[in-house]
């Protein structure tokens, strides 16, 4: 059975590109913001990995990360954060909250896939 990845990004294009690269090895679910992600998890879904953007309407990616890492039900799920801000302080902040990895946009989808495979080996 394929492992499940949840993508949180308000831009459908990013979700499409990621799904093209990841779909062969993983089951991909896309939702447009963090709040929808919270509801999806609360509906009984548990992904093996979450890839989340930071700037999203409704609920920001960093707020979502904080929520998930304080929640005993879901804190074990690794989260990769996507950010357009290449700053060390931002990277440290998110890693401290509990992000597994931090990737700066624009990114190479192949690089992301390799990082995903390191966290979720088949």
């Amino acid at each position, binding site marked *: 059975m394929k492992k499940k990845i949840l993508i949180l990004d308000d831009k*459908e294009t990013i*979700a*499409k*590109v990621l*799904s*093209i690269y990841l779909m062969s090895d993983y089951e*991909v679910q*896309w*939702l*447009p913001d963090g*709040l*929808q992600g*919270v*509801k*999806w998890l*609360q*509906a*009984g879904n*548990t992904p093996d990995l979450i890839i989340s953007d930071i700037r999203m309407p*409704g*609920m920001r990616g960093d707020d979502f990360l904080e*929520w998930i890492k*304080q*929640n*005993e*039900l879901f804190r*074990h799920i690794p989260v990769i954060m996507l950010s357009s801000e290449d700053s060390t302080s931002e990277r440290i902040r998110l890693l401290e909250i509990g992000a597994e990895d931090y990737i700066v946009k624009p990114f190479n989808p192949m690089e992301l896939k390799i990082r995903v495979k390191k966290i979720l080996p088949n």
Partner: protein
Amino acid sequence: MIGVVYLGNNSQTEERLKYLPGRQVKFTKNYMEAADACTSHSRNEHFIVFYEKNVRTEDVTAITYLRKHCEGIYVILMTDQLAGEDRQIYQGCGINDTLDPKATVTELNKKLQFISDRESILFDNQVTKKRILRFKIPLWKRIFDIICSFIGIVILSPILIITAIAIKIESKGPVLFKSKRVGTNYKIFDFLKFRSMYTDAEERLKELSKANNQYGEHQEEDQKTTLTAPLGAEAEQTMMEMAWNRIC
């Protein structure tokens, strides 16, 4: 306004909940009382239930009962740790969130504020299901592309064959050059072109860069491209882009 209900026996948590600013907390000792508290307030449509973790089987019975009898509740399990199996069971019976039993008044209030700010969405039972839409080429378009491309290739084939022979005679290497392009649904495919540069163009460029003269720039380009490049460029625009690549 969201109502707050506490179900448990932890006196320290009870004490902290009493100090929540602007909140009237209803303290209950069993799930029947809690269910009653979540339904008896007409001014509250939604309730947050702080549920103190106890024995798993009893917890499952209580939470399942609350879920069945009360609509519009957000259940927070007061626990500092959940193991693998427990996680699945508690999530399965309807726990929304967790909070450390040692959480301070500020942390309790932060959690309540988080839920209150997003009340309309969090208490809405509808879960958005987003599907990544893929563009599907209509069948008629595909048939049109294949037929027209095929006719184009047949009509232009004399010119294309001559171009191919000229490229082969003029320089070593393959007639066609493959270039990557992004197509429908971001699928990457090989875009075919007539080769217009020498296969060792990069090496030639490095050698030429050593020669520093006023014509260097023009010479560099001339030395990288083959003599048949203009012919190939013309032909590839007519054939490759319009025909073969469309079939692929």
